[in-house]
């Protein structure tokens, strides 16, 4: 069950990226005097760093399982 234990944090990290994607990039925008304090580029950067940061954890269990990485493509 070590797979299970390693996957849980990565699931949380993915969830954080998913939350940031939503709260910062979707949702109703009330036009007019809304103050969006954030530049889009910051959001992309933030989201990217979080996803990339979570990769080793995400790939860990899978790599242990995989006997035959798809080298063909």
């Amino acid at each position: 069950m070590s797979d299970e234990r390693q996957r849980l944090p990565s699931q949380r990290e993915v969830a954080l990226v998913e939350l940031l994607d939503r709260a910062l990039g979707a949702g109703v925008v009330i036009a007019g005097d809304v103050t969006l304090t954030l530049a889009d580029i910051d959001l992309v950067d933030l989201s990217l760093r979080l996803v990339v940061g979570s990769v080793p954890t995400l790939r860990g269990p899978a790599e242990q399982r995989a006997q035959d990485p798809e080298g063909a493509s």
Partner: protein
Amino acid sequence: MIYAYGICAATAPPLPPTCRGLGGARVGVLQRDGLAAVYSRHRTLRPEPTPAEVLAHERIVEAVMARGPVLPLRFGTQLATEERLATALEERREELLRTLARVRDRVELGVRALPAVGTPQRAGGERSGRAYLLARAAEQQRRDRAVHDLHAPLAQLAAASVVQALPAPPALLAAAYLVDAERVAAFRAHAAALGAEHGELHVVVTGPWPPYNFATEGDA
């Protein structure tokens, strides 16, 4: 200064008084013509997109969602006065009511698929132009395949769906689905089965989320 979290029906049960928003602020409700907006008052506020502050926003939206349909506002929504907020509700009343009806008894689920094994990422090393273009094409092919293998069947279980055209790498698919609350378990089971079937993908389902991606009529 007003910070607004989300919009719900005026008939929604009130939030518990212990609910606290950004900066620990008390949360209030403003009603107008059958609609209600959940907000907090601040002397000064400069919301920053940190996980903690975004979570504070999300907690309020989720508290509203637990009591009925909600249309989440984008993080960072500030207005000068309550009256401005009321005007915003009035101006878009019909659209907001229609969208609230659409998300009623439904939730948003997120699906993100990442390469499961150490398939070549966009490496930083030297590459010829030709190798670069081939790698780009291969990446687009993998994204297309993920849409075909995962998104297409999952979209059939949803009332609506949206796919990000260019998911943040290394994700091959990032999509959102508006799913009937009673079909969430079936959706998750199907996603897990598809993930098992396509071993090259690591499939993560998140949610239920407030319907951020289905909160305006322009959304799919």
